[in-house]
């Protein structure tokens, strides 16, 4: 019964498709994302951004006259689910390329499958350095790897802060661990001593023991790598403990999301964070995208959304240039990408031990009066940075 019903549905869908003519046969693109669980906030923002990009592309005629029809598959941030989805897309749906995923663990699982099956995979916001260091021919990454995340922040520290001491707190994940290790290296180059380097369980509720340790060490700078719930909780407890550092900084991810400010409220004030993109960057289309997103969903998007939004434009560009819709031709076209996007210039290079990696500038945001403002690099800043931070007891 069930089989015949689905057979009927498939047949009628086929009839409908043919009735509307061959030329308009849509280009189906399914995107794996975390839509439930701890990373759902990021997945949601990316989903909205993909949809916005698809709408624009379709309004301009789609890919070679075919409309892009998006669908989303929830991988729950589990590598085996992500792999199941991608196996299905490649093998059953015959999708010639893969875009998406968020956590590094899932991206690793997807990248391995994509490369084995010779299907191009465009990574949008997974940070772990090693993903593009495996000599994968078919794996492309649009965001800079983790080692570069804090570049903008480090240049700010070097030129404006010159810290003598630092404390690093990071969550126990590959994103947190590699982010903290990279910052430690930078600190060494800045001649800054790392007094405390502590890992915490992500999703923890009480950070006071490790924060007390930080308070005792009294570092100039406190650097934290966290996803969104931990980020706001950390700042709230820092405020409660009256832990005064000259500067609190986050390593992108949780600290760069609007939810961070919403959740941490006034404890988020002045906090700086590294980020890969800001709504104020002077890339063509960035402002339009950010404003449109804000009008629709009430908040400015973070770099995750911008990268997803631009990734679909990169896909559109590659598909339009590709000789055919075959994976090999799309890979070739992706490799030759030179596109100005809202996320910045996108081109995939083999450099510094990375393959098919896009390198772009990174920025520093600061929360001022409850909004994320771009304060560094100087050329992109829309507000002047506030430093040193006022002590907690001097704040209202």
């Amino acid at each position, binding site marked *: 019964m069930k089989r015949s019903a689905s057979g009927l549905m498939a047949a009628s869908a086929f009839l409908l498709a043919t009735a509307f003519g061959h030329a308009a046969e849509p280009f189906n693109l399914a995107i794996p994302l975390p*839509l*439930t669980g701890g990373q*759902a906030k990021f997945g949601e923002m990316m989903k909205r951004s993909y949809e916005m990009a698809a709408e624009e592309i379709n309004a301009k005629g789609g890919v070679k006259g075919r409309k892009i029809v998006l*669908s*989303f*598959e*929830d991988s*729950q941030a*589990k*590598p*085996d*689910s992500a*792999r*199941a989805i991608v*196996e*299905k897309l*490649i*093998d*059953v749906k015959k999708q010639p390329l893969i875009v998406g995923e968020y956590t590094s*663990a899932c991206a*690793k*699982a997807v990248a*391995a499958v994509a490369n*084995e*099956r010779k299907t191009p995979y465009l990574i949008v916001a997974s940070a*772990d350095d*090693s993903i593009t260091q*495996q000599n994968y021919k078919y794996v492309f990454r649009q965001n800079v790897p983790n080692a570069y995340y804090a570049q903008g922040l480090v240049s700010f520290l070097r030129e404006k802060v010159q810290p003598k001491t630092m404390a690093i707190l990071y969550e*126990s*994940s*590959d994103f*947190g*661990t*590699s982010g903290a290790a990279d910052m430690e290296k930078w600190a060494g180059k800045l001649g800054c001593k790392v007094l405390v380097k502590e*890992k915490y*369980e992500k999703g923890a509720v009480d950070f006071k023991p490790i924060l007390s340790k930080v308070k005792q060490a009294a570092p100039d700078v406190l650097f934290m790598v966290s996803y969104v719930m931990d980020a706001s909780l950390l700042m709230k407890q820092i405020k409660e403990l009256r832990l005064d550092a000259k500067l609190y900084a986050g390593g992108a991810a949780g600290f760069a999301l609007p939810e961070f400010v919403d959740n941490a409220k006034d404890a988020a004030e002045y906090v700086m964070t590294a980020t890969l993109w800001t709504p104020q960057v002077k890339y063509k289309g960035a402002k339009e995208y950010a404003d449109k997103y804000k009008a629709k969903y009430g908040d400015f998007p973070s770099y995750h959304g911008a990268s997803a939004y631009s990734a679909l434009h990169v896909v559109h560009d590659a598909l339009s240039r590709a000789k055919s819709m075959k994976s090999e031709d799309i890979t070739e076209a992706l490799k030759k990408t030179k596109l100005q996007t809202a996320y910045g210039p996108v081109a995939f290079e083999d450099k510094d031990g990375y393959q098919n990696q896009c390198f772009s500038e990174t920025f520093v945001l600061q929360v001022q009066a409850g909004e994320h403002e771009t304060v560094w690099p100087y050329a992109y800043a829309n507000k002047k940075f506030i430093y040193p931070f006022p002590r907690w007891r001097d704040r209202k």
Partner: protein
Amino acid sequence: MKKPLIPLAVLAVLAVLPFSGLSTYMMHILILVLMWTTIGMSWNLLGGYCGQVSFGHAAYFGVGAYTAGLLYFKLQASAWWGIPLSVAVVSVFAFVLGYIVLKLRGPFFALATLASGEVLRITTENWNGFTNGTLGILIQERTWVAKTQYYYIILAITAFTFLLVRRLVASKWGYYFVAVREDQDAAESLGIDTTKYKTIALVVSAALTGICGAFYTNYMGFIDPHIVFALHDISIITIMIVMVGGVATQWGPLVGAGIMVLLAEWIRSIPGLGASHQAFFGVLLVLIILFLPNGIVGDFRKITRLFGRARA
């Protein structure tokens, strides 16, 4: 007389499945079903027959996975050697752990096993020099691109586990296990060395789970502490598989794994359900446990009656 034919028939069907032109996607799902079946059966030996409800099977899964991963990572050996080696490593580990936790009973045992899984996860996360910490272990190139080989390997492991558990349960030891489950003090008074038989059940159960862990490393090509020592995604799912399928039944784990993997995947792919698929699946599981407390296999008669076979 009819009985031994059923497992052979099931095995034959499973053995020819790859020739029916299944997509690699279906093969991936089937591999996961078989892997979970094996973990479920091994849990069933300890939790179902011997009555020691373990909330920490992720510990054995993870130790097995890391045995294979570290062989590759530290010694540049093939991770496949992890399968035989994990039997030894996990057995020793379970024996030592059993010495501590098997002295506890009921909820205390459950909590101790739960803690052991978590302790291991945190240890692996922090022992950077040895385990590569939270960065995990990535196998650069998996042995095969095709799924068929992996499928037959896990099928062999599953068949072996099925046979072993069946033999054990039918043997004298099996009766000791059940005696321990039903009333430990009574069993003791009858002269059964309960600690010994609980340890046997634990070590066998752990070693079988460890094999699956080693297989997982080879198959997925990437492990990190959060994945293989996961409390929810491994330990709890294992219990759910056996609960849904049927505790202390031969076929329960297979049915349970089929439901937990296939049905979850199917519900996840229903278009338009979006992020609510997990709630939907959760409600379904609650209903199964409410109305079929002995699991689908355990309450099979109830199901057939419901669907009107008894009406005739």
